[in-house]
């Protein structure tokens, strides 16, 4: 996909996160679409796209953030780099259940950061957020997987 369209797509997802997701909250929790996108992209082998999603998505979210500037960008870039090494060293093929398990771990760590910044926050919120994130990650993984297969088929034909 063209870089320009990739960036526009990530900006749209980040804006969706800021404008729509707060209204789709259940018990005050809404998942982070950028985090889900970064994890699913890299675990499907779209490393470059994953880095773009982490950087661009993070930067857009900084403008809506109440934390110090750089918080979201650094967290997402760190997630992307860790996953890139994990994927290139230990994981050979994309695996659906493993991807969901890895996403659950990353959501747990990401929420853990908020737990440190927010005293009195309940652990049950994190569990609820993991479940909500996995629900969104399910179709995301299959869409990316389908796109991955299409690319491979096109390359083989050529």
């Amino acid at each position, binding site marked *: 996909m063209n870089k320009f369209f990739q960036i526009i797509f990530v900006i749209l997802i980040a804006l969706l996160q800021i404008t729509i997701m707060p209204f789709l909250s259940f018990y005050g929790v809404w998942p982070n679409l950028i985090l889900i996108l970064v994890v699913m992209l890299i675990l499907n082998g779209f490393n470059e796209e994953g880095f773009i999603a982490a950087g661009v998505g993070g930067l857009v979210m900084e403008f*809506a*953030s*109440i934390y110090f*500037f750089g918080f979201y960008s*650094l967290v997402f870039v760190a997630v992307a780099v860790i996953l890139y090494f994990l994927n290139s060293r230990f994981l050979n093929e994309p695996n659906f259940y493993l991807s969901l398990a890895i996403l659950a771990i990353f959501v747990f760590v990401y929420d853990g950061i908020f737990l440190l910044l927010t005293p009195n926050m309940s652990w049950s919120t994190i569990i609820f957020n993991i479940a909500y994130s996995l629900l969104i990650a399910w179709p995301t993984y299959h869409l990316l997987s389908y796109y991955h297969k299409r690319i491979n088929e096109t390359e083989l034909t050529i």
Partner: protein
Amino acid sequence: MRKWRILIIIISLTIVLAVVSAFGWLNYPKSWFWKTLQPARVVAQFSFGKIPNFFRDLFHLSTIIGQNKSLQEENLNLQSKLSKLQEVEYENEILKKELSFSRSEDSSQMIAAAIIGQPPSGYLRTLLIDKGESNAISKGQAVISQGFLVGKVTKVYPSTSEITLITDFNSLIPVVLQNSRGTGLLRGGLDGLVIESIPLNIQTEPQENVITSGLGGEIPAGIAVGKLKKVISKEGEIFQKVLVASPVDFSRLEVLFILKRNE
């Protein structure tokens, strides 16, 4: 190699913007960003915003029917009280005139504000409103909705302000229980609104009103917060802890009023 180049560009850009932000030069772009997104947010609120509420309402249908019945009863009760109070007010006015009292002017003034943003993560209960320094908003002012306290101003930008809701974990509001006169600190959290640090010798009453105490000088005294729901302190604790029910639905806030205190 290309992916590392992307990464270096992103990190460099973040560092540059973080430095710019540290000098406060991003306050205007941030403010502009929220203002630009406001129409999209309004559309989202009136379309997507109805989805979770619909499911929640459906789930609590039996509770809603029960609540409706008790509210109708309460309404009738309040109507009769209101007519009595109107009579008392009339008598009061006459007596004041007789005693040459001048009617004291309302010491506060309300500024209506629309919600234009929420932070991307839902853990902190903060909101961004469309009124700021240029509208004489200042830090610490009380924020009211439907006559009840919902938060206070925590950050002020040129044309926008940040509000921390009383349901936020970090919010601490000095309050008083209207009948038992027990004072404490109202804190938000996932358990709901909780008043901590109420002395053990205070005999709390069920359903008594909770109002702001005015301690600390930031939030004026007498603003309604809600009603006492139940005592949740455990045995052996040195202070009492009670749960407070606010009639305000914090997920459906639309227009807020900032209580501007006259100098």
